[in-house]
């Protein structure tokens, strides 16, 4: 078998469509048996779609093309991810699926505990666990509660769980996003041992340096298309970055003639600690200035800390933060949303359904919620004034709805997003923080939102836009602050910025020579 086919996994012209979007387009690549194969790509390039095809979440009828595993076509029915596990494909996700209250052994064998006559055979379970941990040199006590372990060790438990199922192919999806530097080192060590033991590994990441440390081959994808597969020895950083971002600016961005004025908002040495791990900084010493009528982009890869930065600035993140914020030169203390709103700062959160809307309530009630004090006293809400004001915003934002009393759930994604934005514009902000303002909405709606952002800038609002879509950031922003691992890597001026430069900074690499500011 080995002689016949040296490849354990082959993608053959795989195309996967979602309504309105082509997630994968004619993707073909092969993974050699026993190698560590890196896959890299920008946010939304199609990495997770690949993983979901391999895990069986997307059944084989839902995509075109063939996926061969061990020379045999995979035909998952999508009913259960057990099918993939039985074939020998194991996946360690970014978010661990572990039960914190159970021990390492109990987690590894969860749902398939060795039994004797219907009763769990604890001796067997413990012995098997110890054997797996020993075989791969994983240094964790099998009887420890998973909740008491650090993130790195938890990940080892996930890997052990995958291996205990006799995996032939191990897929690691962004394995280092939550790890410290030492933990990354330990992970690399384990992967090397696994490789010696004959396990093939697909390593998905957007951190280039990790591929150079561990991978044998690298596949680059962009916008659902295979760009190239190469042995790691032939890979060059600049070329990879070019392949990852060399996207046509197909989306159109509206022209804007907004004027940038004086500095209205300054952030100095801002740091925020992880609420789950008080030693870890999620935002590390970030400083920037924002001018009146300016649109500042916040770029960075997944986990760079964009959302955390905005939420911190709105006073609603974490327990422990350091640093100072100045509004029009005055030091401002903002510890919750109310205080932020008093300072006329508005925040449009990333996840509209979870953080922005009461989806079962009316457009009217959603829009007026943070602004009720504008048309109410303690004993009375002026319902007609409320209606009229919301009506004004529905019209100026061109929200398509039959009535202000319609339930938000009944609107399209783009219109829902407009409701969230309207809700925050009614409070007439000086500083507007937008987190992924165009996520999950169609191109036409995106264009309208860009237009709206420009109009606001023209009126003198200072705007920060965090986005994972590079063309969007480059298309609408005056300056771009690039983040990596919670740190500000640099600020690029619009005419100086390119996708390559932003991506280089976002990956934590220095810009060459004079381009750096």
């Amino acid at each position: 078998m080995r002689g016949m086919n040296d490849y354990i996994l082959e993608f053959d012209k795989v195309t996967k469509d979602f309504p309105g979007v082509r997630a994968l387009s004619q993707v073909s690549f092969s993974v050699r048996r026993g190698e560590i194969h890196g896959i890299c790509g920008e946010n939304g390039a199609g990495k997770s779609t690949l993983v979901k095809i391999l895990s069986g979440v997307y059944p084989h009828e839902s995509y075109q093309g063939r996926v061969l595993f061990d020379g045999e076509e995979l035909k998952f029915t999508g009913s259960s991810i057990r099918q993939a596990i039985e074939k020998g494909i194991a996946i360690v996700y970014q978010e661990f699926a572990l039960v914190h209250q159970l021990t390492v052994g109990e987690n590894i064998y969860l749902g398939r505990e060795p039994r004797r006559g219907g009763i769990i055979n604890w001796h067997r379970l413990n012995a098997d666990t110890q054997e797996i941990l020993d075989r791969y040199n994983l240094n964790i006590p099998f009887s420890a509660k998973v909740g008491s372990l650090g993130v790195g060790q938890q990940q080892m438990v996930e890997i052990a769980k995958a291996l205990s199922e006799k995996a032939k192919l191990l897929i690691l999806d962004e394995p280092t996003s939550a790890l410290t530097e030492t933990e990354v080192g330990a992970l690399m060590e384990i992967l090397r041992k696994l490789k010696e033991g004959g396990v093939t590994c697909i390593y998905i990441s957007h951190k280039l340096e990790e591929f150079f440390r561990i991978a044998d081959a690298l596949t680059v994808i962009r916008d659902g298309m295979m760009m190239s597969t190469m042995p790691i020895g032939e890979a060059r950083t600049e070329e990879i970055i070019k392949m990852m971002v060399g996207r046509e600016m197909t989306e159109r961005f509206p022209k804007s003639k907004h004027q940038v004025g004086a500095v209205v908002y300054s952030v100095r040495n801002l740091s925020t600690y992880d609420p789950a791990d008080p030693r870890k900084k999620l935002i590390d010493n970030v400083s920037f200035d924002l001018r009146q009528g300016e649109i500042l982009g916040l770029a960075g890869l997944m986990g760079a800390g964009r959302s955390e930065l905005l939420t911190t600035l709105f006073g609603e993140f974490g327990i422990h933060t350091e640093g100072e914020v100045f509004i029009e030169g005055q030091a401002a203390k903002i510890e919750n949303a109310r205080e932020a709103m008093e300072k006329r700062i508005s925040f449009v959160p990333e996840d509209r359904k979870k953080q922005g809307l009461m989806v079962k309530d009316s457009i009217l009630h959603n829009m007026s919620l943070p602004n009720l004090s504008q048309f109410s006293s303690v004993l009375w809400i002026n319902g007609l004034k409320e209606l009229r004001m919301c009506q004004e915003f529905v019209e100026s934002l061109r929200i398509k709805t039959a009535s202000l009393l319609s339930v938000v759930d009944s609107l399209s994604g783009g219109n829902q997003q407009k409701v969230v934005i309207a809700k925050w514009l009614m409070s007439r902000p000086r500083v507007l923080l937008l987190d992924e303002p165009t996520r999950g909405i169609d191109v036409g709606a995106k264009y309208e939102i860009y237009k709206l952002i420009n109009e606001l800038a023209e009126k003198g609002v200072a705007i920060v836009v965090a986005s994972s879509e590079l063309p969007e950031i480059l298309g609408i922003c005056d300056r771009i602050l690039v983040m990596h691992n919670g740190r500000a890597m640099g600020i690029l001026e619009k005419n100086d910025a390119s996708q390559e430069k932003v991506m280089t900074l976002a990956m934590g690499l220095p810009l060459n020579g004079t381009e750096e500011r």
Partner: protein
Amino acid sequence: MKKLSIVNQIRMNLKTYTMIFALLAIWLLFGILTDWIFFSPRNLSNLFRQMTIISFLAIGMVLVIVTGNIDLSVGSVTGFIGVVAAYLQSILFAKGLPALFPQLTAQSIAALSTALTILLCLVVGGIIGTMQGAMVAYMGIPSFIVTLGGQLVFRGGNLGITQGKTIVPIEESFKEIAQGYLPNNIGLVLATAVILIIFVSFLWNRRQRKIYGFSLKPLSVDLLKAGFFSAVMLFYVLIMNQYQGVQNPVLLMAFVALVFTYLTNNTRLGRYAYAIGGNKEAARLSGINIKANIFQVFIFMGLLCAVAGIVLTARVAAGSISGGVNYELSAIAACVIGGTSLMGGEGTIFGAIVGSLIMASLENGMSVMNMDVFWQYIIRGLVLIFAVYVDVASKKNR
């Protein structure tokens, strides 16, 4: 802005129609089973008086549930405040007031005693609400636990005050709160006044909408609506006048229901409560003080328990150890039947009132039928479970 089509309006109000249909079906059933005794003016008068106590609790419970909480102590608190009222009336004030104010006539003493009792009961209710609310909102103890503990605490308080005995007598003026009737002609005058207010407010509302530049529904639709409400009310007053007149507690209930309907729809407190239940995270990011809102809601619940306790003692004309037992079940059932969602964020005062009427009708009907008490308990318990099931099932379908 386009108008909602008639079909959409009907669909939006489907829950209300189902509820009223269920009520009519239950009435018809009991009518047949009791040889139409159920529909005698006397029994209807009793029925509406019975429903008031549960209504007060259900009105407060709507707000509590809307914020995503629950209050299991309302029955015990009602019973506790009921015996506090009886204790004040028949022991403390009966002896204390004549000693303090020897110059006053017996009649004035009685009036003073009643007024002070009402005031003190409201204070006690407010304090209880404040304490439970603080524990839920500021100390972070789940409301389920706080009020489950409270249930036993106030049941104990009740036993402590009564020492296991029934406390009598109650002043006549105090009994009037629950047992009295409006004279027939005053009832009619009041009804006429309210009808006038209904029509004037409908027209006022139209004028305002016009001033603010909104489209108007056809005048006939508004007039029909106003006419319907007026007719229902007038019909009620006429039926009640055939017995002894409109009951005082029903009047009180109508007043409280109006106040709280206003509170839920037209004040920030109400809006925030719905927002918190609808999406806590969005509410927090909208700058709402979630703790303060939940705290306030529990204070209102405490005050309404006090009202219920006062009416209870006035109705049975005694403070007894069994007062208020199981009222929390009826109140929660009334809310859920009336469309309040246990997930929070949804529910109306009007619904809770209709729900209370349904629960009271069940109790009343079963009593008129002379059904064994054990069956009554079983059926009421099952009705609660069924009502929640309907709520859960209707959510799943959407």
